[in-house]
Every structure is written in C-alpha cells, then in structure tokens.
C-alpha cells in the first residue's frame, strides 16, 4: 500500500528538519560560487571529520540524559590541552605522547566533569545556560593554572612550552612532535598527482578510533546505565520513584561527556598541529554544538547520524563561505563573518524551535478536548 503524502506531512518534515535543509541549500548555492574542485572538497571534509567527530560525539550522552547541549564540554577540551602541554614539555613524541596525554587528561576531565555535573544538579531546568557559564568560569581557573601555575607550582621548564620569563605557557605551542601521528600511522592516499601531493588522504587508524567510539556509544545505549540515563532524561521524578539514582546518573553523563571531549580535543589538536593555549578550547564547544545541530539534532534528541551529517554540512559551509564571499563581493572577510553568524544563528534557531515545539505539545491537549466535544455533538 502506498502511503499518501499529504501537505501536512511535508510541512512536518520541513519543520522538523529545517536546519539541515537550510544548510543543504546554502552549500548547494556556495559550491559553484566558491569554485573549489570536488577532490579538494572531499579531502577537506575527510580532514574535518577526522578532526571533529570525536568532539561532537562527546555531546550525545548528556542529550540522552536530558541535560541538553553540554556547553561544559569546553572543560574536557581544557583537560585534553593540559595533557598535551605536559607531554610536549616532557618531549614525549608520536603515538605514545598522545596516549600519555590521554592518560593525564582522564583524571582531570573526571574531576572537572564531576564539578560540572554537581553544579548542573543544582540548576535543574536551566542546565544549558549554567553549563555555559561553567565553561566561562572554568576558563578563568584554567588560565590561572596555565598562566601562573605552570612553571613555579607545576614543575615544567621546557622552553618550547614555558615562556622565557619562567612561568606561564606560551600563547601557541607547536605540536610537531605529535602532529598527525595517528593519522599518518596508516594513511591511504588516493588520486595523488605526479608529485605525490594533492588528492585525498584517508587516515585509517583515526577512522577506526572514531568508529570504535560510535560502537561504544551504541553499546552504551544498551547498558543499564544507558537505560537509566534515557529514563532520567524523560522524567526525573518517575526515574527517582523507580529507585534510579537521578543525581548520580546525571553527574555520570557529564563526566563521560567531559572525558570523551578531552580525548576528542587531543585528536583534534594533534591533527591541527598547533595548540593555541588560551583560545583553542574556548570556541570548540560552540563549533561542535553548532555542527551537531546542523545535522538535525535538537536539544532533546541526537543520534550518531546527526553527528556525521552535521560535521559534513557545517564544515562544508565553513570551507566555502570565505571563498564564496571573495568571489561574490570581493571580500573574504564577509564570508568569514557570515559563517560565524550562521554558527551562532543555527544554535539560536535550534534553541528557539525546541522551546516553541515543547510549548506546542503542551497546547495539544486542549485542542483534543474541544475536538472531543464537537464529535460528541455530532454523534
């Protein structure tokens, strides 16, 4: 039997997927204007997926636990950076360096995640703004530690990391020693030209890691704790009545997210090759969240599919707009501003749509009641 597609279904589909649709249209318009080759774009997209997917995946679990978008993932990014600062200072190179950075980052991320989770338990119903402010607050603490603690209190001395004045970490740290060490461990190059440059590079090991994390998340949904989180996410009171430890479960969700974000940041920075000590983490939360939302996720619902679709669309837009701006108006800056506007705009739009949708669902019951009476009258 063929299902009739009514205009109502179309409208519902559009309103539920408005953000990805906007982006697909946007990208479709920008691709010819920017004039990049398909090969270049594919290679760029692969690089972005490698860089960002771990970070974006880390956002899924708090959404599952009903805590909204975890703006506090910045805390995880800080932990990852601290791990990298240590290994760079100690001169641990290549994959062992990254592994060690991850080991160092884990306990820091756990503590930060616990702090963030406990704070959010005190601000139920406004988790997002609170996690956002936590990221700002902890940014200050991070700067205190990195700028004044490292050197005198935490004994680091490597001149590649520490400023000549003897305390504080440099603005930028060159991560040459660990740069792309996971990506290059096993990379497949396709369509290279005669010089062996250009073309598409596929870092197999990184992809294996990302797929492994996806599997972990799939597995996680099937565990008891995953089930508990879904329960808590739907209704805290019902979950509490059933004997689930609500507060603990929520804290765990944030801790897991923070730890994954720390690993994600390590992968991200190792791919980038430089660490902007005072900047890298501060915007990464925003960009990851925007990417996830572009993929069609909402404040209360997100899947692995959203993550990858989101990264592809969001970063395609990010690559295209400056060039499109230059070709169209002759100013790349407009494109740069535009993509930032779009990032913020997407988050705003998604938040607004979410709130409106929640209220609309509440209003539904009144309509049903009026309908019921009318039907009775007819009968």
């Amino acid at each position: 039997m063929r299902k009739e597609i009514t205009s109502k279904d179309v409208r519902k589909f559009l309103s539920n997927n408005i953000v990805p649709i906007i982006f697909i249209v946007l990208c479709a318009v920008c691709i010819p204007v920017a004039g990049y080759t398909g090969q270049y774009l594919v290679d760029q997209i692969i690089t972005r997926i490698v860089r960002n997917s771990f970070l974006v995946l880390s956002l899924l679990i708090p959404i599952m636990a009903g805590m909204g978008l975890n703006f506090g993932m910045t805390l995880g990014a800080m932990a990852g950076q601290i791990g990298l600062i240590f290994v760079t200072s100690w001169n641990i190179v290549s994959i062992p360096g990254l592994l060690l950075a991850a080991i160092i980052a884990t306990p820091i991320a756990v503590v930060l995640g616990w702090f963030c989770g406990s704070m959010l338990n005190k601000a139920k119903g406004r988790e997002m703004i609170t996690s956002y402010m936590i990221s700002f607050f902890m940014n200050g603490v991070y700067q205190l530690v990195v700028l004044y603690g490292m050197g005198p209190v935490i004994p680091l001395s490597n001149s590649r990391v520490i400023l000549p004045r003897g305390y504080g970490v440099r603005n930028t740290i060159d991560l040459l020693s660990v740069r792309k060490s996971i990506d290059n461990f096993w990379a497949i190059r396709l369509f290279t030209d005669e010089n062996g440059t250009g073309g598409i590079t596929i870092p197999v090991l990184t992809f294996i890691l990302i797929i492994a994390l996806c599997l972990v998340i799939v597995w996680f949904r099937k565990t008891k704790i995953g089930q508990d989180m879904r329960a808590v996410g739907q209704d805290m009171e019902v979950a509490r009545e059933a004997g689930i430890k609500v507060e603990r479960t929520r804290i765990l969700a944030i801790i897991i997210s923070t730890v994954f974000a720390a690993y994600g940041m390590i992968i991200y920075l190792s791919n980038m090759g430089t660490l902007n000590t005072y900047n890298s983490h501060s915007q990464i939360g925003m960009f990851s969240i925007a990417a996830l939302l572009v993929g069609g996720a909402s404040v209360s619902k997100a899947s692995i599919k959203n993550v990858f679709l989101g990264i592809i669309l969001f970063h395609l837009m990010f690559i295209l707009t400056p060039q499109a701006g230059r070709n169209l108006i002759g100013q790349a800056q407009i494109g740069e501003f535009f993509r930032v506007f779009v990032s913020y705009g997407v988050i705003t739009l998604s938040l607004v749509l979410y709130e409106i949708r929640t209220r609309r669902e509440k209003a539904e019951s009144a309509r049903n009641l009026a309908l019921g009476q009318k039907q009775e009258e007819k009968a």
Partner: protein
Amino acid sequence: MDRAMEILKGFGLPRLIITLFLVALFIIAPFAGISVTASITDVLGRFGQNAIMVLAMVPMIHSGCGLNFGLPLGIISGLLGATLAIETGIHGPVSFILAILYSTPFAIILGWGYGKLLNRVKGGEMMIATYVGFSSVAFMSIMWLILPYSSPTMVWGYTGQGLRTTISTEGFYYHILRDTLSINIGHLSISLAEILFFAFFAFIIWAFLHTKTGTAMTAVGSNPVFARASGINIDRQRTLSVIMSTWLGALGILCYQQGYGFVQLYQGPMYMAMPAVSAILIGGASVNKANITNVIIGTILYQGIVSMTPSVMNSLIHTDMSEVLRIIVSNGMILYALTRKTGASR
C-alpha cells in the same frame, strides 16, 4: 547575634568576600605606592561609564525575563545611533544628543522583536538571549562592512568601504559628560554630569516602577500566574520591559563611548553583557529580583575590583593576574546566582 547572622546571610558570602577584597585593596593601595584619590577618581569614572549598562538589566529582571544576556542587541542599537550621528558630521554636544535620538528607534524596533521572541520561549530566556546577542553581533559585523557609510573618520582609508573596527569619538562626543561639571579636589576629580546622567535615568526607572504599569511589571516577574489571573497581559509587560532594557543598553554604550573615547564595532559588543550581568549580581540582585541600589553597589564593587586589582597586584607581586581574576570573579558570581536554590523559578 542571630540578627547579624541573618543580615550576613542575606548579604551573601560571595558578595561579602568581594566587598572585603575591595576594602583590602584600598587599604593596601597606599603601601603599594598607589594614590587612593587617583584610584577613587578612576573607579568613579568607570562607574559613570558603565552604570547605565548595568541599569539596563533591571527592567528585564523585574518582568521575570531573567538576566539580560542579550544586551549586545541594545549595544548594537547604540552603535547604529553613534555611527549615524558621526556620519552627519555634526561635532560637539549635539552629536551626543543626535546619537541618542538615532539609536532610539532602533532600540525600540529591535527590543520589540527580541521581546516577542522571548515571549515564545518562556523558561529558556537566558540561553536564547545569549545566542540572540551573539548572532546579532555577527550579523552586524557583516553590515558594518557593507552599509553605505561615507564619513572619512569611520570608513577604512584604503578601500573606501566598510567601517573601521574602532572609531574615535574625539571631536564628536568624547568626554562630553566626563568633562562637564567636573569637580577637582586635589587629585580627586569627580564628573558630576556623568553621575547626574546616570541618576536621571535611574530616577526614571525608579519612578516607572512606582506607576501602575511598573507595578504590573513587577507582579509579572514576581508571579506570572498571579498577574495573569489579575488580568495583566503578561506578554505585553515582558515586551515592554525588553524594549526598556534594550534602549537603556543603547544609552549605556553611548555613555561608555563618551568616556572611553572609541566606538568599538564588529566583535566589540560580543561579551559586553557579562560584566553588566555580574555587576548587578554582585550588587545583590538575583535572577528575578533587582533594584536601583543593586545597580549602584554592584557597579562600584565590580569596577572597583577591575580597576584596583591590576595596579595593586602589579606593584606588589609584579604579576598582572587581574584579568584572570576578573574572569573568575565575574563568571563565578553569575554561576553562583544560577545555582542558588532560591529564585530558581526560572
């Protein structure tokens, strides 16, 4: 004793620590070779510059819209007013009045739209306000590039298109309030005009809250269901409060510019909401209660710390930790207000 504890509790521990910290700074200052009178001049100057932006928080808190993280919207109206006033090329005090006049319609229109939006997202105002602010800043960044301004003081010299990132108010309304009616006692200089300017608007807000409409607004913030049951149009009160906040934000940035000397475009307004939000919280406001006293105390405490810490710290330990300290204190204050059990209705 209990009474004292009660007062202390009402005052709040973080506020107490901040006050004591500021007092300590003033006590240490002379020993660190810093002139107290110069410091006071500085703090009062900053007070005059920033107080109106803090005042812009009051109407929205009163109507229950929470902390106005969307202040950048008001600032943008102010920037539009400022740039249009400079574009006319009229110098002197008139340019300041022009800037206020030009920015008013923008503030009303933007505030109206912003208020309508916030009415549709009751309960999630603060997060959405933050991102409305950010998006509008990013949007205006594009606009500053393409709007057809032509005044040579504002436009990039070499391309002849797009506004500069910072525009000097020198010759227009630089120190238009700061240098009027200023009292000089030794090194202490107090700008009466600036303070009177603030006092005037603080009085208007105070008076407004004593009228019928102001009373309704407070009731909406205190208990929206009660207000609705009493026949108040909640949405209209909220929209009105948002328009007021936005307009005060526009005035605030103009007042800031005359003291600071520059119009900051592009990403300038991005994070300007945070200091204002944390100042009013330091002053004793909560997410849904605020008054003029909170504004005055908060601005003095916040600006006191911002201006005193760098100089004192620098001369004591030769390390400028002030910026980091400011980030921790101001954001910590907001976090404290958000995670407090009381006033958790929104």
